[in-house]
């Protein structure tokens, strides 16, 4: 079990104990209903200073470097239409759609720096399915009892409309470990 997964387990238990499950869920629900500006992450990250911050290298040859190809390195656990083929990009939703506040994650290796990144597959919601660039890759994907690693859930259920348009592939940060089974 990866550190990440272990942490998820312990931190969620901890939180539930601290807050009481009811109040925690109530708070969560309130936040979700309240503002699309409050994304719900299954991981936390350090207060990185902008000075130190960098981005993963993207100058990769072939489909592994093409954000609109299923083979794109970030797409290792994506299931859906690539937003880059729908008017958005792998980091932005198409015009008129809303990014889901909750979503699943994957752990994908960047072939240039050989580092594993945690990728957050945010769905874009509120418009009929895009219908372009369908990809289904499942490296490190897990069944529904591991929800934050499951790509069969309609994550738009957390948005103001559950109508699914497409999926993005955004970097949250470096992974401490590789995919959970490794």
């Amino acid at each position, binding site marked *: 079990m990866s550190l990440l997964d272990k942490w998820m387990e312990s931190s969620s238990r901890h939180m*539930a104990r601290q807050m009481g499950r009811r109040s925690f869920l109530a708070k969560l629900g309130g936040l979700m209903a309240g503002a699309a500006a409050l994304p719900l*992450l299954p*991981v936390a990250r350090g207060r990185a200073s902008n000075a130190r911050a960098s981005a993963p290298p993207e100058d990769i040859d072939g489909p592994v470097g093409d954000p609109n190809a299923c083979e794109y390195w970030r797409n290792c656990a994506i299931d859906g239409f690539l937003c880059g083929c729908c008017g958005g990009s792998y980091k932005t939703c198409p015009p008129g*759609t809303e990014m889901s506040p909750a979503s699943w994650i994957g752990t994908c290796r960047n072939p240039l720096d050989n580092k594993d*990144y945690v990728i957050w597959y945010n769905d874009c919601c509120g418009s009929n*399915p895009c219908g372009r660039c369908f990809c289904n890759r499942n490296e490190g994907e897990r069944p529904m009892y591991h929800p934050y690693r499951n790509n069969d859930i309609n994550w738009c259920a957390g948005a103001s409309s559950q109508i699914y348009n497409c999926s993005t592939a*955004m970097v949250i*940060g470096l992974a401490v470990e590789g995919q959970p089974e490794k």
Partner: protein
Amino acid sequence: MRLLGASFLAVGLIIVHCTTGFAQVELQQAPVSVGADVDPDPHGISATVRRELGPHTLWVADRLFRHSILFDGDTGNALGMLDTTWSLGGITPHTSHKRGEFYVLEPIYAHGNRGKRTDYVTIYDGETLEISGEIELPTLKEETGHSVALTGLLDDERFLVITNMIPAASVSVVDLEARRFVTEIETAGCTQVYPVSPRRFGMLCGDGTMIAIDLDDTGKLAAIQRTAKFFDSVNDPVSGKGARDGTRWLFATFDGHLNEVDLEPNIPVARARWSLTTDRERKADWTTGGKQHLAVHAKSRTLYALMHTGARGSHKDPGSEIWTFDLDTRERRDTFDVPSLLPAFLRPVLKLPADSIGHKILKLVLPNLGAHSIVVTADDQPLMFVRHDEIGAIGVLDAHDGTHMSDIEESGISGGLMEVP
């Protein structure tokens, strides 16, 4: 209830604020050292459509996905998409360049697929594609089909006119500036709408004439003028799938004759028809057909006609060739082959890389189904887009010489229309 000893409780347990794209953890708990030295991608950003649409922009409607996609015809990239909620949709949105808005006509039921129906013109912001308004239509007669010329935006982008068919022919007028329904005009025997100016549009009539309807500045009916009878609606009917050339509209008959109606004069004038085919071609059953089978490039004075061979009743069959004519001399200029669209449709289904051996085999083996629709951009380097009604791929041709330049794949599945906004 006892706690189940769960390995975790829920998704999304850590609340993170996203301010100017930078994530800040809100919890006291020590976070995992994820990405401390990597800039996270900012959450919650939606793209926008650029304010000025390029000359090669294309709207493509699809009935099955129930949306229209706005494409950049040069790159084949999707710029955005707008929903149509109805089941038989397939009409492209209207565009106001002046106000930066798109308009979609949609019937909405009170309860999913059932309950009271109300029709709306839904207004979208042209950059964000967010809904900025709705205009409720009191009539419930909009006929929700998917032909050309069912709706038309008049030239100064103020009035939208909508064909009604059931139980009787009429036109609904909507003021898009004031965002209100204006009136319904009865048009007994005349239908479909062909804009020619800010206040005038034509309609084809079952008695073989065309009328011009003039609106006043409030959108109400000002006058109706009628051409002389110029076609035989039984023996050689003109197709309603016309193409506009300034103040004129061009219509092909089922037998491949071209009718031109000039709607500029107060009383509109139909010119003498001419034939797109020679006697020999006619004998070989060449004629026009399809769904959007005529296109005009006004600057080069070119008429494009989608042609096939077929007997009576074939007027909606796909075309195998595109013939070009000089709009003024009426001389035949060129013949373009309709490219085979099936390989571009199947390539993504089969997940074949572009130009792979498998893709090439598809091109060799699969039959050419032809195309039902053509549209041409208005600029100096015009593109022609060709589409088959039942497969979701669009061929992109150089409209000057017919070179098949590229395909727009996955443009939909079931055909509606195309429009250059």
